[in-house]
């Protein structure tokens, strides 16, 4: 995947994270046609931008007030 497509995926993951708490599994299910490696790469970039909180069951939660 090109770097611009990775950046698009980063945006999509961040948008999804704002909707509701999620597991990494939800990303793999949400983007079934996107290669596994691209999701790993995008996830790494997302984590550089967003300091997710975690809820009591381990969901990633978009930080409040962001």
């Amino acid at each position: 995947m090109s770097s611009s497509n990775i950046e698009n995926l980063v945006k999509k993951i961040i948008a999804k994270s704002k909707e509701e708490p999620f597991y990494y599994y939800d990303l793999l299910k949400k983007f079934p046609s996107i290669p596994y490696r691209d999701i790993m790469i995008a996830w790494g970039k997302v984590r550089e931008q967003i300091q997710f909180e975690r809820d009591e069951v381990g969901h990633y939660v978009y930080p409040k007030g962001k």
Partner: protein
Amino acid sequence: MEDMRGFMKRLEKEGELLRIKKEVDARYISALVGQSDKALYFEKVEGFNFPVVSGLLNTRKRVAIGMNVSERELGKKFQEAIDRPIDPIVVKKAPVHEVVYKGKDVDLTIFPIPYFSEKDGGPYISGGIVSSFDPEYGPNAGMYRMMFRKKNETSIDLVSPSDMRFYYQRTLDKKKPLPMAVAIGNHPYEMLAASYKAPINMNEFAIAGGLHGEPLKMVKCVTSDLLVPANAEIVLECEILPVGWVYDEGRFGDFSHVQGDLKWNPIVKVNAITHRKDAIFYALHMPWENDWLAGPVTEAAALRALREASVEPVAVYATPGSCCFWEIVASIRKRPGEGKNAVLALLSLSEVKLVIVTDDDINIYDPTEVDWALALRVQADQDVIIVSGARGKHIDPSLKAWTLAKDALPTTAKLGIDATIPEGVPRTRYERMKYSFRDEVKLEDYL
């Protein structure tokens, strides 16, 4: 000396490893291995240049193949290696140094790091042997899970007490990182040795040498003085940052077969990646590979405890239902009183919370035989021992560890059952029925 590839060849020859030639999506690796009664070697993984092998040690039989002994001799062989360790030797050149990435070129996403369970916190490096060093206490090796975070960053689970946690605390006190290296794709002997909580001054790689019967070849890392197995497939050269237990890690489908809790752990920066030109990524498949790695270690500890109690063991079995960890069934050649002595000795093992001791006529690998001994040789008011307040393990839900104060350690009750023939009951009372003429006829002659 045999490496992981040699072990894979033997597994394949024994019909215990299956090659998958069709390209596979890495997100399905864990589920596919879970459906297989064989280890799986995925030759093509979509989007990656590395094949993946997983499930190598998913059964006791495969551990026995790896250790070149029968399934009943795992603990004995492991104990012999502890008794006769062979120090490793250092070599200058190593297959694992055929390809080197450093600094900005480090990218963990080149590897098909699997995602195992539905509620895991991310992809996990599950089968790495983690090496570290302390100037006062020497080298240490253990197996620790590492969650992928970024292309050059992971978490590491250092919550439980361990030598490595101790080393990290010492460098953290000085506000310095702890250099560590992660070897992925090793022979079962190296993984078994690393799974063993050796005394702090004992080199786990010397135990691996004892298992091999010759010194393990090790090579110095390219960015630190740490030594790693020269024949590993992949090595990550890292440092644990001096941040303390503050970053989210997990959840992770654990060796206890439950989805473990979210934890707070340090993070790891990866400074270099080295690997063989045609490296194979090894994914330790949870929970059974972890469990069966624990089996020989637990059984060796049980044999040691019985001998130190002057009880003669015939066989010991860390039962799979207890994740090869919490329950020991042992058969002994009993003299009066030794059923109880054996129970007490085995209950002293730190992690064991259930113990059953039988006589030497019971096949302890057969649950029906063990139940028979429990039914006909036990008087609950005389043969059951319960010990309260012993050290427990957080991961056991029955201990309600989540109700404890942070950093508090849970305690557990332990149960031991002396299922040997009671004193005063003649052995003849347990004479087994035998079919008449059983040696003179064969059913197949009548079919």
